[in-house]
């Protein structure tokens, strides 16, 4: 059985590799929900390619809007290094926050080593 410490290190390493590969190889096509919205607003056919100028109308209902610090998983205007920083931040923040919440919620003050 792989020890917990090794399991965590291997898991983080895999997450970082996936995250870095994603920066260079992720598809720029819209995701399923965005594609559906483009089809329904008449800018795309169901099975056709997405036109390069197709733009998602996000303000269907007026109300709340929010500017995140790293929109689209990148530091604004910093290119590839900004995307790497954003990705590593996201992986690290996810790990630390879930670790903290899980420790507190499970009532354990400290996880066992190894």
């Amino acid at each position, binding site marked *: 059985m*792989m020890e917990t410490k090794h399991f965590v290190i291997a898991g983080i390493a895999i997450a970082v590799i996936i995250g870095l590969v994603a920066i260079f190889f992720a598809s720029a096509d819209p995701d399923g929900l965005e594609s559906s919205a483009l089809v*329904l607003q008449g800018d795309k056919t169901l099975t056709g390619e997405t036109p390069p100028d197709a733009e998602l109308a996000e303000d269907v209902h007026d109300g*709340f809007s929010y500017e995140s610090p790293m929109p*689209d998983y990148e530091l604004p205007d910093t290119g590839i290094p900004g995307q790497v920083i954003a990705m590593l931040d996201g992986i690290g923040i996810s*790990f630390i926050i879930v670790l903290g919440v899980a420790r507190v919620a499970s009532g354990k003050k400290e996880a066992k080593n190894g």
Partner: protein
Amino acid sequence: MHIPDGFIPLLQTIIYWIIALLFIALALRWARKELSEEKVPIVAVLAAAIFAIQAFNLPVGMGTSGHLVGGALAAIILGSPYAAVFILSIVLIIQGVIFGDGGITTMGANIVNMGVIGGFVGFYAFTGFKSAIKNPYVSAGIAAWFACVIPALAASVELWIAGTFPLVGGMIAMGTYHAAIGVIEAVITAVAVYLIWHARPELDWSTMSQAEAGRVTAA
């Protein structure tokens, strides 16, 4: 399938937030009762991996890309739909607040779809298929496909109630794209469950008797 702000009117988003908070409370209760000390770092590393893999959009044809959601993966690995609610809720909050992926007002709906519906569909589809076809990895893959498609259909119904999508057109588009994206979800989930349960066989609750599972949890 992260719904942005502006796709659901404010009043309706409050209802999804209330449902999400109810399930988050139940997930915290699950963590208090069921989450052993040894599993805490595993939960955290799973969250980090789900964050990374959610950011990896793979092409699925039809001018569309898709990524793993991870609800089925979390629920199957940790043996509870509440594990998916726990992990996905935190990952979705981080994605929305820091990376602008999914709205703030619509975060409740996104937690309900991907965490709650994804987790419960993934978990119970897995136990159902596992008892029928016995192979845990094939069962995990099939369960993951349903845990991608059914939350997408739920989202299309929510967007119909919101007046943003038509019902039939929305379900056809969301269903078509997520049926394709679900294949990615299925393959990655099956492989990940295989690798994780081989690295840590004691996590494989699916082949244990109740008594054995109790001993592992207590240990």
